[in-house]
């Protein structure tokens, strides 16, 4: 098949995928979104004869618009712009999970510092303030006191971008020093890992230590439902254990749509890029058959 890769930066994740695709004899069209122009009916990017395009844009804004354009031209693109739109925004992400009945941390949003402070005081300390767009744990604040809350809210209100004035407040979940990342394709888990850290942020990008996590039936079911809630695709589903590591209870705090998997690939026995390419082949075939 002929596969397009939307990118602006080739990370180790993309190199693993490119190697797997080429090894299987697939033709790859790398599309640097920084160079492409997107018109209402056509693009300068060579997408005309592609069987499928995989969005691997590092910048969320580019991912959102580039996939929207490709979908409008009728080019099969994964993940879909609908999935990207939900996953790129923490508010939409939380709403989609809650609407689907997937357990997710208690969350409230306010548009002024005064209203945000009311939420924080009602939640109690500690609680968490997150940017609605962003990742790798950046600009996340664990708020331990009213003094800290007032200072952080004031800082956010002066950061400039209007998105920082959307105050997304979440309960602080007492997790057992780790969270769980599951990478899944259309709800079917490929593999999972725990990310452990003494810091409250356990993201691999923040230096969290990774180890393989054996997927339980409970996690499998939550992953399937969380994936469906955001429209499916190649996703990174993040869960936290509630009530201790052996409780079997989880809350899903986020679903990521341009998931990085190099840390997972290093942590588990499964060949993650191989399974991703299996899925791409099947998805492209599905598009060709009109399903």
């Amino acid at each position, binding site marked *: 098949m002929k596969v397009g890769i939307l*990118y*602006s*930066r*080739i*990370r180790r994740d*993309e*190199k693993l995928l*490119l*190697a797997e695709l080429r090894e299987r004899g697939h033709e790859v069209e*790398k599309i*640097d979104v920084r160079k492409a122009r997107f018109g209402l009916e056509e693009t300068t990017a060579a997408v005309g004869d592609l069987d499928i395009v995989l969005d691997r844009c*590092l*910048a*969320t*804004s580019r991912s959102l618009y580039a996939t929207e354009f490709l979908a409008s031209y009728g080019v099969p693109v994964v993940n879909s712009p609908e999935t990207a739109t939900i996953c790129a925004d923490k508010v939409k992400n939380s709403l989609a999970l809650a609407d689907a009945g997937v357990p997710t941390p208690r969350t409230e949003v306010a548009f002024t510092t005064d209203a945000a402070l009311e939420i924080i005081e009602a939640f109690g300390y500690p609680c968490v303030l997150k940017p609605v*767009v*962003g*990742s*790798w744990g*950046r600009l996340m604040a664990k708020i331990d006191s009213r003094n800290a809350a007032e200072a952080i809210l004031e800082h956010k209100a002066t950061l400039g*971008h209007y998105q920082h004035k959307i105050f997304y407040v979440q309960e602080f979940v007492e997790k057992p020093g780790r969270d769980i990342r599951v990478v899944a394709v259309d709800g079917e888990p490929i593999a999972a890992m725990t990310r452990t850290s003494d810091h409250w942020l356990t993201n691999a*990008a923040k230096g969290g230590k990774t180890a393989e996590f054996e997927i339980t039936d409970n996690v499998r079911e939550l992953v399937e439902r969380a994936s469906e809630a955001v429209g499916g695709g190649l996703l*990174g589903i993040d869960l936290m254990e509630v009530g201790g590591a052996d409780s079997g209870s989880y809350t899903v705090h986020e679903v*990521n*749509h*341009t*998931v*990085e998997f190099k840390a997972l690939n290093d942590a588990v026995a499964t060949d993650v890029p191989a399974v991703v390419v299996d899925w791409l082949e099947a998805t492209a075939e599905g598009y060709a058959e009109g399903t």
Partner: protein
Amino acid sequence: MTNDTDALIAEDPITGEEIELPADVEVGEIIDSPVTGAELEVISLDPLVLEEAPELEEDWGE
């Protein structure tokens, strides 16, 4: 840095020194300069050209 005999040689855009790159580098790939540690982007393969990689932006990530 690799000692692979197929390694490629490029000029570090910051210091002008010659640096070795693995033979399988891709256009768009980010490598760490062995000289300065700065992130460099592979702009082209023939000729092999590196530039300083773009700075991290707020909406980057997954």
